[in-house]
C-alpha cells in the first residue's frame, strides 16, 4: 500500500495501482487537493483516524493554484511572513504536537 518512495507521489494515480479500492465504499471523498482539499481531508482524519478517506486531484500535484507550473517567477503571494512573530505555521496550526503525529506513524496501525 505504501507508495514507492522513488516515485514520490507525483506520478501516481489509481489506474496504476493494483488495489481494488474502487470496489469498496469510502467514508469521505474529497474532490481537489488544493489548500482547501488538503485541509478538509486532514481535519476529517484528525477526528476520524480510522475512516476511509480518498482525495481526487485532476492534476499531478498538490496545491491547486500554488502548484508548480502555475506560479509566476518573481510574483509574490498574498501571504506574509514575519520573523518570529508571524505566520510560522501556515496550515498546521491545529495538529497535536509533531511528536505525537510521528508517534501514530511508529505504531503502524493495521489498515482498516
Amino acid at each position, binding site marked *: 500500500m505504501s507508495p514507492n518512495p522513488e516515485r514520490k507521489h507525483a506520478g501516481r494515480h489509481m489506474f496504476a495501482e493494483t488495489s481494488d479500492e474502487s470496489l469498496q465504499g469510502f467514508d469521505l*471523498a474529497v474532490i481537489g487537493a488544493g489548500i482547501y482539499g488538503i485541509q478538509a481531508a486532514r481535519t476529517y482524519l484528525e477526528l476520524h483516524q480510522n475512516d476511509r478517506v480518498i482525495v*481526487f486531484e485532476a492534476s499531478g*500535484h498538490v496545491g491547486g493554484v500554488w502548484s508548480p507550473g502555475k506560479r*509566476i517567477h*518573481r510574483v509574490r503571494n498574498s501571504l506574509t511572513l*514575519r520573523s518570529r512573530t508571524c505566520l510560522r505555521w501556515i496550515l498546521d496550526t491545529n495538529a497535536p504536537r509533531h511528536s505525537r503525529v510521528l508517534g501514530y506513524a511508529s505504531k503502524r496501525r493495521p489498515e482498516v
Partner: protein
Amino acid sequence: MPLKGVPRSDTYHDFFPARYVADYLECYVNSKIYAGRSLASRIHFHSEVETLRKVEQGWVLHIRGHQDGDLGSAQFVARKVIDATGLTSNPNIPSISGQNEYRGQMLHVKDFGRQQDSILRPKGPRRVAVIGGAKSAADVAYVCAKAGNEVDWIIRRSGAGPAAFVSAKASWPYGNSNESFYNRFTSHFLVSWFFDESKTWLGRFLYHTNLGRAVITKVWKAISHKARALANYDREDGRQNGFYNLKPDTDIFWQNDSTGVCQRDDFFDVVAHRVKVHRQDITRMTDHGLELADGTDVSADTVVFATGWKRSHPRFRVSEEEQDLMVSLGLAAPEPREHDPSATHWNVLEAAAKKNVYARFPILLDRPPHHTADPSNSITPLQLYKGILPINDRSIAFVGQMLLGNNFRNAEVQALYAVSALDGMLSLPSKAQMEMTVAHTVVWDRLRYLSKGQPGNWLYWDLIPYTDDLLNELGLRSHRHNNRWKDMFAPCFARDLTGLIEEYRMKSRKGRNTELRQA
C-alpha cells in the same frame, strides 16, 4: 509544522514568493500520518471527477484518469463528499470575434507560469498583450515589461475597471498591509454582514450613530486617497503610455475591482515607463493581434488572458438532471433557467432581506455608479448556508466557494465547519431560517460589493468576521485572546487557530456524554 525558512532577501514587507508554499504543501501531505497511512498516499492524482451522482448510500463519483492521454475511468462510492474544487478550476477566456484568425500564441494566465521562460527570455524583444484589470494582469504586465518585452495592457471599458493597489507597508503596530487588515479592530470598518457590531462600544458607535457612519466613510476615503497618492496616476512620465488609464472606477471601500497589494517598490515605475495601458473594449482579434474599439491596432506575439475564472461548477455536466441537482444544492446553475419554480420563492425572501440590510447598513444606499452588464450577473447566486452547506443535504459540503483576500485561515476554519456538519455535530437552525440567512448574505453581498458581489460569494475583506462567525457557531473560543485589547488589535495569525480541533474534540465528547446521561 512551521514553514521552512524563507530567506529575508526573498521577502518584501514579509510577503514571500509562492514557490515556498508549494514546497510546504508537498512536505505537509507527506508528514501527516493517520492510522499508519500518510495523507499523501490517499491522494489520487490525474484523477478527474467527471460526474457526481446521489444514491442511497451517499454519492457515486465517476473518475476519469488522464496523464498524457486517457487512462480509463472508474467509479467510487462514498458516504460523504467534500467538494474542494474551489473557484480557480475553470479558466475564463472571453470569446472575441476573430480568435481563430490570430496566428500568435494565446494563453490563460493559469498557464503563464509554465510557459513564462519562453515568453520572458525570448531571442529578441517580444510583444505581449495582457488582457484583464486585476492583480494577475498586473503581475503579468510587470514581469513581462521588466524582462524587456513590449507590453500592451488592455482593460475593457465596459468592465469593472482596473484594480487599486494598496501599499504593502503599514504603520505601527502592524508589520504589513495584511496585518493591518486582518484584525478585529479593522473588522469594525468593513460593513460586513458577519460582524456583530453590538458586541463592542466602538461597533455600536460606528453603526448606530450618524457620526459613526461618517467616520467609516472618512476612513475609507483616506485609504483610497493614500492608494491613489502612492500610484500617482497622473504622473508626467506615464502620460504617453496611458498610465492614467489605471485609475480605478470605484473607491476601495466597494472592492469592485479586486484590490491588490503592491508587492514591489518599482511596480508603478516599471508600468508607467514600459507598459502601454489601454482602457478600451476589444472589437476583434486580427491575424497579428487585437483591434480596440477606438481603432487602435495592437500587435502581439503573445496574448495573455488574465481574465479570471468561470463560475460554473466543473463537477456537474449540464444535463437536465444534473442542473436540477445543482440548483437543489444551492450551486449556481451554468445557465439561467427559464422556469425555475424556486426563483419566485427566493425573490420574496430577498426582497424582505433587502429592507433589513439597508436598515442595518444605511451606508450601502449611497452606491456609486458602477458597471453591471456582466452576463454572469443573471446566473443564480450561490445559495449555500454560510457559503458551505446546501440547505437540504447533509452528505455533501463545499469548501473554498467563497472568495476571500487570503485563503489559508479560511481553509482551516471552513474544513472544521464542514466536517462538523457532515458528522451531524453542528446544531443548525430550521430550513426556513437557513434560507433567510442565505437570502441576507446574498443581498448584502450584492449591495456591499456591487458587480463583484452579484454571485453572492465575494467576501473580499471579510476574512476575520466570517471565520469568527463560523467558529462562533461551532461554539469554539480558543482562537480568541483573553485580553480584550489584544483580541481587538492584535493581527490574526494562523497560529491563533492552534488547538481548535482539540477544543472541538473535547467539546463534542462532552456533548456526547451529556446526551448519554440524559438518555
